């Protein structure tokens, strides 16, 4: 759905319009659930996170402003934050990660292959295209799967220290490129 329509749906949701809320759900739940399940790997946890996020959107749609990014990116941030919180709290208490793996293909989404990119995404990819492949891969694994340094190190078969510095270097370059061109 076009960004403009999402903005007007959010504005209607801020006025407590239930129909608009359901339309917003129909337009965005596939994306938000896709984000949550990639990070959490389990349907029931992803459902809880997506539910929390929509309740938050229902109660806080008025907090949205274009300064926070596109509506989709704003909602995706809410879902990612909650999913990563849950993941960190869970790994703190029990490490039983393996049972849920394998439900999903482990190939990271490829934003570069996306044909229909927003202006913001193509600006970001323009900058990410300039960084090393190793740095790029670490950033993608972290963003799409919520992996920690250690987990990325295991996946890329690199020392943790290398992963840490790749991520920091990659982020600093992306920031420099986006902020100063």
């Amino acid at each position: 759905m076009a960004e403009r329509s999402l903005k007007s749906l959010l504005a209607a949701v801020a006025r407590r319009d239930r129909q608009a809320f359901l339309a917003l759900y129909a337009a965005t739940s596939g994306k938000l659930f896709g984000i949550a399940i990639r990070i959490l790997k389990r349907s029931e946890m992803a459902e809880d996170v997506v539910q929390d996020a929509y309740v938050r959107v229902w109660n806080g749609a008025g907090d949205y402003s274009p300064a926070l990014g596109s509506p989709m990116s704003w909602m995706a941030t809410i879902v990612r934050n909650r999913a990563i919180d849950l993941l960190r709290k869970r790994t703190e208490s029990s490490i039983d990660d393996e049972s849920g793996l394998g439900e999903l293909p482990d190939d990271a989404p490829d934003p570069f292959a996306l044909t229909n990119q927003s202006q913001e995404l193509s600006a970001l990819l323009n900058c990410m295209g300039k960084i090393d492949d190793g740095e790029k891969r670490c950033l993608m694994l972290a963003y799409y799967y919520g992996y920690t340094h250690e987990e990325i190190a295991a996946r890329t078969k690199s020392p943790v220290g290398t992963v840490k510095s790749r991520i920091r270097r990659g982020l600093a370059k992306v920031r420099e490129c986006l902020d100063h061109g």
Partner: protein
Amino acid sequence: MADRDDMDLMAAEYVLGTLDARDHARAQGLVANDASFSNLVAAWERRLGPLSEAVPDMQPPQHLRSRIEAAIGGSAQVRNGVREAISNVAEALERRLAVWRLGALASGAAAALALALWFGGIEVPGRPQAPVQDRYVAMLMGDAGNYGFVITVEPKAEKLMVRCLVPDPPDNHDYELWLLKDGAEPKTLGIVPPGQFMYMPMPDRMDMPEPDKRIKLAVSLEPRGGARGQQMGKVMYAGDLMKLTP
């Protein structure tokens, strides 16, 4: 400058999600308490947010939509319900004031009588004025800001009146009512019977709020039969018990 750069990269890694549990919790604390850090986080959310466009859609199960509708429906409906209840109270007060304006002199005694009528509810003019019967109320609110239960306590009548504003608990579960007091274990007041308007017996020596003693009522979701002396289950709704009468 190095410090600020470190903070900025920490904000970036928080947004990216690479921090381990300890650093993640630390960053979360900063987001809540440090405006400059939370601005750095917002800037990174904006920079990296567009990456989510590339995540393939995955349709959630059908039941999720109804769950979310129930979660938000509750709040909208209940808010309307509360608004209605408030306007009903206002109308009742209006009616009583109208009676008072018609029939009574605008003296202090008449005003006191009007108050007694309002709070006592049963006194009629001409009868000796009975002391106002104490009444307490707690409006229990859920996480989503929706009201779940309104509980009125009349110590003299030794009963709790429970108005339930949410659907019955899920199958094989019960709602249980608890009294919470600072520094004391939660004390069960019993299983809430199903329905919208219920009475529950008031336990002996139930703690009541006082100016320096705060009492909270809470409803938890328990397996059928209640917590039975085990630890209290998930708190669904909670609110302060307040004295309603002077």
